[in-house]
C-alpha cells in the first residue's frame, strides 16, 4: 500500500505506529514514576533531535532504494566546518550556519554525483564519503574540538527556547520534519524519489531525468545532514571531530522502524519521526529504570523486533 498519501487508511496506520510508541510510553510511565515528567520527556525529545534530523534526510535517500551511510560523519564534518566559519574565521552567525548547511549539501552533491553519474552502488558511494568526511573532520579541526564559547548566540540556536519549555533543537527537528514531509509527498523531489525507488527504469523511460533528480535528492538529504551538524554543534557548544560514527546506523534504524522500505518506493516521514522517538524513548526508559547497560542492549533489540512485528501484523501482508 502506498504509504505516502495521507489517505484515511494511512492516517490510521500511522496512528497505530504511534500507538506502539504510546505503549512503550505507558509501560515506562507505570514502571518508573520519574518517566512521565516534562523534564524527562523534554530529555527524550532532545535526545531524538539530532539523530531524527539525520533520519529525515536518510528517509528521502532510502525512498529511492538507496542508502546513506555518510550521515553520521557527514554531520560531524558539517559541525566542524560551522566551527571553522564561526569560531575560526569569525563570520557572522547566519553565514556560518548557512555555511554548515552548504557543506551538507556539498556532501550530498558528491554522493549524488557518484551514485547517479558514476553509477556506484549507494552503499559504496556513501561508505566512501563516510570515511572521507571522518578523515576531513579530523584534518580540518586538527583533531581538536572547536569551541563556540566566543560566538555569541550560537549555543542558543539549539539550547534556547523560542517556545517556552521547548528547546529550540526540538523545535527545529519538528519544523524539519514538516519540511521533509512536504518534500516527500508534495514536491517533485519526493515524488521522483518514490518513483525511482519503485521502478527506476520505468521512471527513466517515462521521461524523468533520473540522474539529475537523484543528485537533487542526495543534495536535499545533505541539507538535513548539515542541519543536524549545526544543531549538534550548537547543543555541545563545540564541534567534536571524533564523534559521528555509528549515528548513521541509528538514523537508518529509525527510518526502517518507522516503516520505510529499504527496497525503496515506500516512505513515510511521520514514521521516521516515530521510529526515532521509539529508539530514544526505549533508551531513556531503560536508563531511568536503571537497567544495567548490557541488558539495555538486549531489551532494545527484543523490543525493536516486537514493535516492528506488531506493526507488520497490523498492516497485514501489504507491508
Amino acid at each position, binding site marked *: 500500500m502506498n504509504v505516502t498519501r495521507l489517505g484515511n487508511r494511512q492516517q490510521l496506520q500511522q496512528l497505530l505506529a504511534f500507538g506502539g510508541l504510546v505503549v512503550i510510553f505507558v509501560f515506562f510511565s507505570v514502571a518508573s514514576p520519574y518517566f512521565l515528567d516534562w523534564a524527562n520527556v523534554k530529555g527524550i525529545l532532545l535526545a531524538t533531535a539530532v539523530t531524527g534530523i539525520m533520519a529525515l534526510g536518510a528517509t528521502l535517500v532510502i525512498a529511492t532504494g538507496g542508502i546513506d551511510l555518510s550521515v553520521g560523519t557527514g554531520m560531524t564534518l558539517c559541525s566542524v566546518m560551522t566551527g571553522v566559519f564561526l569560531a575560526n574565521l569569525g563570520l557572522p552567525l547566519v553565514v556560518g550556519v548557512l555555511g554548515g548547511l552548504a557543506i551538507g549539501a556539498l556532501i550530498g552533491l558528491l554522493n549524488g554525483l557518484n551514485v547517479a553519474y558514476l553509477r556506484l552502488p549507494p552503499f559504496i558511494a556513501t561508505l566512501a564519503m563516510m570515511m572521507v568526511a571522518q578523515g576531513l573532520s579530523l584534518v580540518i579541526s586538527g583533531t581538536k574540538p572547536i569551541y563556540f564559547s566566543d560566538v555569541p548566540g550560537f549555543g542558543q540556536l539549539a539550547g534556547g527556547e523560542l517556545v517556552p519549555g521547548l528547546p529550540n533543537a526540538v523545535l527545529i527537528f519538528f519544523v524539519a520534519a514538516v519540511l521533509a514531509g512536504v518534500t516527500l509527498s*508534495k*514536491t517533485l523531489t519526493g515524488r521522483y524519489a518514490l518513483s525511482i525507488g519503485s521502478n527506476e527504469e*520505468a521512471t527513466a*523511460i*517515462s521521461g524523468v531525468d533520473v540522474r539529475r533528480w537523484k543528485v537533487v535528492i542526495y543534495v536535499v538529504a545533505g541539507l538535513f545532514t548539515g542541519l543536524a551538524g549545526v544543531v549538534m554543534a550548537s547543543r555541545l557548544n563545540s564541534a567534536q571531530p571524533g564523534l559521528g560514527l555509528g549515528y548513521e546506523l541509528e538514523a537508518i534504524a529509525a527510518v526502517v522502524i518507522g516503516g520505510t522500505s529499504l527496497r525503496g*518506493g515506500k516512505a513515510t516521514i511521520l514514521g521516521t519521526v516515530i521510529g526515532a522517538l521509539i529508539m530514544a524513548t526505549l533508551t531513556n526508559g531503560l536508563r531511568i529504570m536503571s537497567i544495567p547497560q548490557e541488558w539495555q542492549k538486549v531489551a532494545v533489540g527484543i523490543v525493536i523486533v516486537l514493535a516492528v512485528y506488531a506493526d507488520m501484523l497490523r498492516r497485514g501482508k501489504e507491508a
Partner: protein
Amino acid sequence: MTDGPALLRATGISKSFPGVRALDDVHLDLRHGEVLALVGENGAGKSTLLKLLSGIHRPDAGTMELDGAPMSPAGPRQANELGISVIHQEFHLMPDLTVAQNIFIGREPRRAGLLIRDDELERRAGRLFERLGIPLDPRQPVAHLSVAGQQMVEIAKALSFDARVLIMDEPTAALTETEVATLFRIVRDFVSPRTGVIYVSHRMDEIKEISDRITVLRDGRYVDTLPTAGTATRDVIAAMVGRQLATGVRPEPAPGVADREVALAVRGLSTRALLKDVSFELYRGEILGLAGLMGAGRTEVARAIIGADRSSGAVEVNGKPVTVRSPADAVRHGIGYLSEDRKRYGLLLDQDVVRNVMLSSLPGMTRGGFVRDADGRRVAAEMVDRLSIRTPSVTQRAKNLSGGNQQKVVLAKWLVRDCDVLIVDEPTRGIDVGAKDEIYTLLTGLAAQGKSIVVISSELPEVLRLADRIVVMCEGRVTGTLANADATQHHIMELATRFGADRSLVTTGGDA
C-alpha cells in the same frame, strides 16, 4: 463428448479481493483431449480463475475436481504434483539465473544429494528445447532475453513437467506469428486422450485455430461455453462484451501525406548490437507502422530514438536536428515511448493508478513547486473512464490490476503527457478485442488531431488496421516501406524475411 468425469472441473467458484469481486459463481470444465479457450474482457477474471486452479489463490467458495477427485491445491508446487502446469500471464522468472536454472528450479539434479550438476541441467534443457523446437541457449541468463524469449522460457518450463493439464494465460501476447506457429505445434503435440489445455487469449483468430470449445466470462461471471466449430467470431465477441462490434476496418488512405511536414526524421540510425543504417520519416498526423519479426530490431529503433540506448545517427524533430541522450531529452522534444515490457519499463507496480498516470506529466501538474494531487486524481479518473480501466478506484495499486488494465494505465500515462510524437511498442498487448478497437479509434483520433504516431506491433492485422504507411525491418535493417493500400500480410512477411538468416530469441534489454 467422452463419458466419465471431466479432466478438470470447477463449479460455483467465487473469489473477491478488497473492493473487487473477481469471480462470482463461475464454472468451467475441461474434457480429456481438448483445448478449451477461456475468453473475456480485461478484468473479466480469467487470470484469477487460473490462479485458483494452480493454487496461487484459494477460492472463497466453490469446488474443483481433477478426474472426478476433489482437489484444492495448497500451492503451485502441489498443483504441479497433481499434474497441472501453468504459464501465467505475468512471468515468474529469476532474471539473474540462466534459462536452464530457471526451468529446473526446485528440481536440480545433484551429485551425492549435495552438489548441483549444472552440466546435466543444461543438457536436459537443451533436449527440451530440441524437442519443442525452441531456439534458446540454456546457459543464457534470463535477464538477457527479450519478452518473447522469456515467454518461450515459461512455455518450456511448463512443458518440462509431466503435466496432464496445461494452462496458458495469454502465451502469445509477446509472440510474433512464427513463434505462435511453434507454440501451436507444441500444443497439438501435447494434447492426447489423457491431457487437456486451457488457453487464454484475446486473439480471436488464434482461438479459432487452436481451440475445441470456448468458455466466456464477463464481469467475473460465467456466460456460456460454445463449440469453436460452428460459432462465428463475432458471436464470441458479442458474448464477451455483451454487444456487437465491427472489426476488420482499414484506414482511409491518408490524403496527400507527402505534402505534410515531417514531424520526426530518423537518419542512419545504427547500434553496435543490431541496427544498421535505419532511416525513415514520420509525417505530421501520420500513423507509421513498424513491422518485422521478433528480434528484427523494432524495439531497438524506438529505444535508440529516445536515447535509452546508445546509437549513432541523427534524429530530427520538425526538421531541426536534436540531440537525444536520454528519454528525458526525448520527452523534452515531444517524443514519448510506450514500452513493450510494461512490468519493467512501464509501471510503478507498488504505486496507485494516480501516481502511474501522472508520472510523465508531473512538472505540469505543480503549482509553486507543489504537486497538485487533486488534478492528478481528476485526470486519472478521466483516463479510467475514457479507456474503461477496470479498477475499484484510482488509488488501487497497479500491481492489483489485471494485465490488460495495467496496459491501459501505461497508455493513459502517455495520453496525459500529450507528446507530439508517440512511439507505441505493442500498444494492445493483452488488451481485449473490444478495448482494442477503442484504442485504435483513440490512436486514429490522435493522428487526426495532428499527432504523429509510430506503431510497433507483432500483429500484422493491427498494423494494417492502423498504419498509413508501414516500414518493414529485418535483422536491424529497413527492408522496405509500403503504403497501406499496397500492403498485404503476405507482402510484409516477404520483406520481413528478406535475409532469412537464422535468428535467436536473444535480446539484451538495452541499457539494463
